[in-house]
């Protein structure tokens, strides 16, 4: 009797329990799986060139915007004007612990002993995925390319008083290992945010993540609020 009722109950539950993940979640997971396979199958080479290419691309876009804006009759109407005083000074790259969940995402789960090095190797393998990477290499810190496919929407650029376009990124500090930074980068990818990992230079240790670049303050506000909502603390940095 009880068994019969349990069987009916089980049937009833199966009848009602049919929810499935939404399409955008499926797409995000499959995209990550696809990228992950590509990382392994492509031959690694020239990380510095890739990094240099990414930086060069940002610079070229910035210069084009500066050149083109005056020809188009000046800046469009903007919700608010950039003031240098609004922006925080670029902060020192402080070593800070990230919340436990991120550590976990990069750390445990299986045997784990070589996880960090494995993840790091995969990430470096992935560098070779970036196309058109053979650009001139400006000096500076090492930058990894973004892993997300869609670049963030670039709305109206914000001109500074000098006529140059201000370019911003959101910086997330405090990753003591590359694996932690990679885990965060993947998390950001799920949020459809374009992020790159940077390694600290001589006086700074660890890794940091930069989200962007952005030239529209509204977009910057929106993304920072999105990060805050997920408990991810970020600071604004103006790209020189």
């Amino acid at each position, binding site marked *: 009797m009880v068994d019969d009722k349990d069987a009916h109950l089980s049937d009833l539950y199966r009848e009602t329990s049919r929810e499935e993940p939404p399409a955008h979640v499926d797409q*995000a997971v499959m995209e990550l799986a696809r990228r992950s396979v590509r990382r392994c199958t492509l031959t690694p080479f020239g990380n510095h060139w890739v990094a240099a290419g990414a930086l060069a691309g940002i610079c070229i876009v910035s210069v084009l915007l500066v050149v083109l804006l005056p020809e188009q009759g000046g800046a469009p109407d903007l919700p608010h004007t950039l003031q240098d005083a609004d922006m925080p000074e670029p902060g020192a790259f402080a070593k800070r612990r990230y919340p436990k969940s991120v550590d976990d*995402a990069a750390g445990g789960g299986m045997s784990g002993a070589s996880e960090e090095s494995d993840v790091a190797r995969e990430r470096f393998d992935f560098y070779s995925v970036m196309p058109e990477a053979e650009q001139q290499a400006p000096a500076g810190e090492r930058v990894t390319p973004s892993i997300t496919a869609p670049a963030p929407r670039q709305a109206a650029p914000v001109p500074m008083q000098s006529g140059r376009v201000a370019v911003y990124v959101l910086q997330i500090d405090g990753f003591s290992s590359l694996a932690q930074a990679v885990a965060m980068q993947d998390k950001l990818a799920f949020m459809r945010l374009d992020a790159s990992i940077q390694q600290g230079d001589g006086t700074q240790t660890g890794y940091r993540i930069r989200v962007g670049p952005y030239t529209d303050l509204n977009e910057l506000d929106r993304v920072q609020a999105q990060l805050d909502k997920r408990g991810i603390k970020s600071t604004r940095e103006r790209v020189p």
Partner: protein
Amino acid sequence: MQDSDEDCMLRYADGELAAFQVLYERHRGSLYRYFLRQSPRDVAEELFQDVWTRVIQARSRYRPDATFRTWLYTLARNRMIDYWRRQGRDPLALSGNTDAVLYDAGEHPTGNPRRLADLRECLEQLLRLVESLPVLQREAFLLRHDAGMTLPEIAAALDTGAETAKSRLRYAMERLRAGLPEECLEGHEHG
């Protein structure tokens, strides 16, 4: 013959994306519902993605020591526990209690069950009851009836013994039966 989950995972580790697609298709619904029954929808989506991220990141280190499904739900449970802790709850603090205490814990979610003639109402009522089960019983129920796991697999995923897993499942079923009107348990025809 259908490839096992473990074979699919090993093939994905070798770079075969199609093998991952098979795995994902097999488990996406039940894993999503595992989170959905225990957290708000936006949280469920985030935790669901987190688990698959970890699966993807760990593929090269995967060893089929346990079933893939057990491993998947161990990851899922860890993410769920992380979430509960962020909410200031620690469901594992209950682990030391006896199952009898767990069974007695909490008020009956529905009071005296009224008569429900309509199947749809039965379904809605059942979902509410499942979501209001004590955490440890709910886990066991979801792993059995959503993920389709065997008792040994449930015990492994919950990091407990088979007898304990069986007890939790039994108490969950008793609680659901008690909360559901009699006519809901008397043989609806389901498609």
